[in-house]
Structures are given as structure tokens and as C-alpha cells.
């Protein structure tokens, strides 16, 4: 495990010795966030937030626009800049980010995009396998521009899973896709996560998406986790949906 808080290292209360024994304890959570605060200027976005995500757990994060979902995700990914704050963040060293836009390098071919972060002689081989997993076999040498939006997002998914991360952070990865492609992507994501078992934090606007995919749904409000609801597969999706919508203050 590695602990970081981007440029705010001084505030993170971690010991480097954590790295030594964390691997041995499988019961250790994948993500542990304690007292995380983030703000831009005078505006506080995250306020003393606590969060724990277990190994292999799929967590969806809901919240109003501007509630700080992306800010939280960026803090976990160690990508925060121009931000003030404090708190301890522990995340696995191997984590991947899926951005809202596919964020493929337009000047590199699809395969190169997938293996961008890989090292070693078998990178190309692993990249091909990852592309096959997302159903893009044979498109290795295409330019990203030549792919449809859904295909680009699948390449991004392949890129994020090819490194076998212990934690997958996804910020509304399907926001720009049409409803049908979205449903296909849900199936794909669930399948891939079942196979690779990373812990997942998926930011979404879509309550249905959250309920279908996640083991646990969080709602971020007022800088904290306001709702933390386990999704019980025995219970109907509608029931979860309604209780979440009610909690969000939207009449179902």
C-alpha cells in the first residue's frame, strides 16, 4: 500500500512501514480515508470525510453536481492540484483511473495507448489480450479518432485494467454514451471486475447505474458521505432505487 495526498504530503499521517505488512493482511481494506478535507480558496468541498473500501468491493458514488465527487476521486488518485486540505489517504500502489472522456492520445495507435503505462517485454502481448477482453480484437493499429465513442471508452477500460490494478477509480466513465451502449458497457464492466477483482470506486450521476453495478452505494453531500447503503441482491433494484432517491431528496 502507498499513502499519498498529492502535493499535501506533509499532512498525510502515514508511516512508510505500512508498506511492509499491508500486503500480508488480506482483510485490510483497499482504501482508507480519514478526515479528508479539500477546498478551493475559501470554498470547502470535502469536509472531514471518512471512507473505507474493502478489497474487491464495488462502490458507486452518487451526489449532486458540484458536491465534490471528482474532487474525492482526484484526491484518491493523487492527482489533486491547486487544492488545500488535509487528511490521510491510503490507497493501493497499483491503481488505475478511468476519466470521463476516454482520454486516449490521438497521436498513438490504440495498442500503444493501452500499454502506455506498462513496462517489460510482454507489454504488447498483455495489451492485445486486454483489447480482446473488451471486444476490440483486430483494432490494435487503429487511430483513436477512427473509433466510436463507446469503442474509445472500451479502449480506456482496457488501458485501466491491463495493469491489473487493485483499485479502479472511474469518474463517470459512461456519461457521454447513449443508453444502449451504456447498458452494454455495464455488462462489460461487471464481467471484467468479476474476473480481475479490483476494488472499484465509480462516480456516477445515474442511480440505476449505481444500483445495478455496485455492492455499495455512497451519496456525497455537504462534503461528507451522507448515505452509505449496501445493495442487497435479494432485495429488488426498485426498492434500492426508491430509498436512494428518497434519500437524495428526489421524489421517486
Amino acid at each position, binding site marked *: 500500500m502507498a499513502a499519498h495526498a498529492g502535493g499535501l504530503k506533509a499532512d498525510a499521517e502515514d508511516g512508510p512501514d505500512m508498506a511492509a505488512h499491508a500486503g500480508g493482511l488480506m482483510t485490510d481494506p483497499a482504501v482508507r480515508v480519514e478526515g479528508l478535507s479539500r477546498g478551493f480558496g475559501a470554498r470547502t468541498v470535502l469536509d472531514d470525510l471518512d471512507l473505507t473500501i474493502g478489497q474487491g468491493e464495488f462502490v458507486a458514488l452518487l451526489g449532486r453536481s458540484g458536491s465534490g465527487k471528482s474532487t474525492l476521486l482526484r484526491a484518491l*488518485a493523487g492527482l489533486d492540484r491547486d487544492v488545500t486540505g488535509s487528511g490521510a489517504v491510503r490507497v493501493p500502489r497499483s491503481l488505475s483511473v478511468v476519466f470521463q*472522456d476516454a*482520454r486516449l*492520445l*490521438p*497521436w498513438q495507435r490504440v495498442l500503444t495507448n493501452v500499454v502506455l503505462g506498462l513496462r517489460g517485454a510482454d507489454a504488447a502481448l498483455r495489451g492485445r489480450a486486454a483489447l480482446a477482453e473488451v471486444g476490440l480484437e483486430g483494432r490494435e493499429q487503429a*487511430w483513436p479518432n477512427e473509433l466510436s465513442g463507446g469503442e474509445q471508452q472500451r479502449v480506456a477500460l482496457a488501458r485501466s485494467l491491463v495493469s491489473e490494478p487493485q483499485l479502479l477509480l472511474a469518474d463517470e466513465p459512461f456519461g457521454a454514451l447513449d443508453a444502449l451502449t451504456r447498458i452494454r458497457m455495464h455488462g462489460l464492466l461487471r464481467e471484467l471486475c468479476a474476473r480481475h477483482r479490483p476494488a472499484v470506486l465509480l462516480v456516477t450521476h445515474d442511480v440505476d447505474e449505481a444500483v445495478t453495478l455496485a455492492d455499495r452505494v455512497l451519496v456525497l453531500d455537504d462534503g461528507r458521505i451522507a448515505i452509505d447503503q449496501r445493495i442487497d441482491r435479494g432485495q429488488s433494484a426498485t426498492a434500492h432505487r426508491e430509498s436512494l432517491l428518497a434519500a437524495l431528496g428526489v421524489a421517486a
Partner: protein
Amino acid sequence: MSLLSPHRRRLGPGRPIPLGAALGPVLLLAIWSVASALGWLDPRTLSAPWTVVTTTGDLIADGRLQDNLAISSQRAGLGLLFGVAIGTVLALISGLSRWGEAILDGPIQIKRAIPSLALIPLLILWLGIGEGMKVTTITLGVFVPVYIHTHNGLRGIDSRYVELGESLRLRTGTFLRRIVLPGALPGFLLGLRFAVVNAWLALVVVEQINSTSGIGYMMELAREYGQTDIIVVGLVLYGVLGLLSDGAVRLVQRRALTWRRTLAD
């Protein structure tokens, strides 16, 4: 109801005309030939196209053309080489570090405001009138556009790609090779096109001042003897060289930037 899609007006310039680029020059040549044949053009003003062709033959036969062309190409080539190398390195330094930018960008912007050719008197005082001065003048004209456009290209790389590189924990080498350099390539190649033009331009000027060889010298000598045919040979030569080198850069551009689909394609 028709099954055909309604006719939509295309907003791009449309299909390219085959050999379209040659149309204008051929037309110009035709007008020139007709004017000379009908005697509208005094040979002392402008020689006829066929005189220019025979003169070219004579110049090649006695070896003057090749010798002068070789020395001119060498000057332009060396100046281009040094200028491109210097411009690229400076752009990388200034594009990748804030300190580099703070130190380098100002002076280069000032240099940009001073035409390289205006520096010739000073360069002659410092370097004499030999090859060093000539190549330096060309280098000075070349490095500025390469710097400006490469730097612009570097600065224009979307910060989202930088963030991607950070999230993938790319090593500096990989980051430069996969993101920075390809991202700046379109800018660099644009700068190179300006650079090539500048190289020939500077060449013309340095060869007509205090020179004893090169195409410019050959033309200067012809002026003293009133040989418009030789002057035209020189002009055509400059034109052909300029076109060829620009064409070469464009070819590289097309090859290197296949990932980009632009309006002109």
C-alpha cells in the same frame, strides 16, 4: 417521398483537383511564352523562356550552375541544420521548465522582432564575410520560427494528457517520448516550413552581399553585365529549391501526422 438523402451543401472546400497545384504556374509560363513570342517582352527586360532554357544548358555545360548550386545548398543546409537543432532544443528547455521559459523566452521574442537580415552588419564585423557569417545569418533566421512553433506546440498540449501521464505513473522518458514530443510535432513541422522559407530568403541576401560564389553571386554578376537570362535562371532555381524543400516538409508532415484529419485532407 424520396429515399435519397436531401442534398446537403458541403462546408469543406470539396474534392482536391488532380494536379491542381501545377495549374497556376503552367498558366503563368504560357502567358510569359506568348508575350515573348509576340515580341511584347523586350529581352532586356525579361528573356524568353527558351533563352532561359538554353542559358541553363550552357551554365550546366561549363559547370558554373552545379558549383554555385552546391555551395548555395551547403550554406542553406548547414544553416537549416543548426537553426532547427538550436530552435528545437531551446523550445524544449523553455517548454518543459518554467525557469527555462523565464530565461529564454524573452530574449527570443526580442530577437524575433529584429529581422535577421538587419543583423548582417554586426555579423560581418564579428565574423568577417566568410562562410561563418553566411551560415550564422541563415541559422538566426531559421531557429526563431522553429522555436516559436515548437514552443507553442508544447504549451498547447492538453493538460489532460499530462494528468493521464501522471495517473499512469509514466517515467519521464516515456512521458517525453509518448506525450510531449508527438504532441509538439505538429507545431514543430509548421515551424519547419517557415524555417525552410527563411533559410532560402537569408541565403539570397547573404549571397548578394560580399560573396564570390553561390547562386546569388551568379545573379549579381549577371546584373552587372545585363544578362537577364542568367538572372531568371537564378530566380527559377530559387523558386524550384523553395518549392522542393517545402514539398519535402509537407510530405514529412503528411506522413508524421496521419492521425490528424484536417479540413484540407
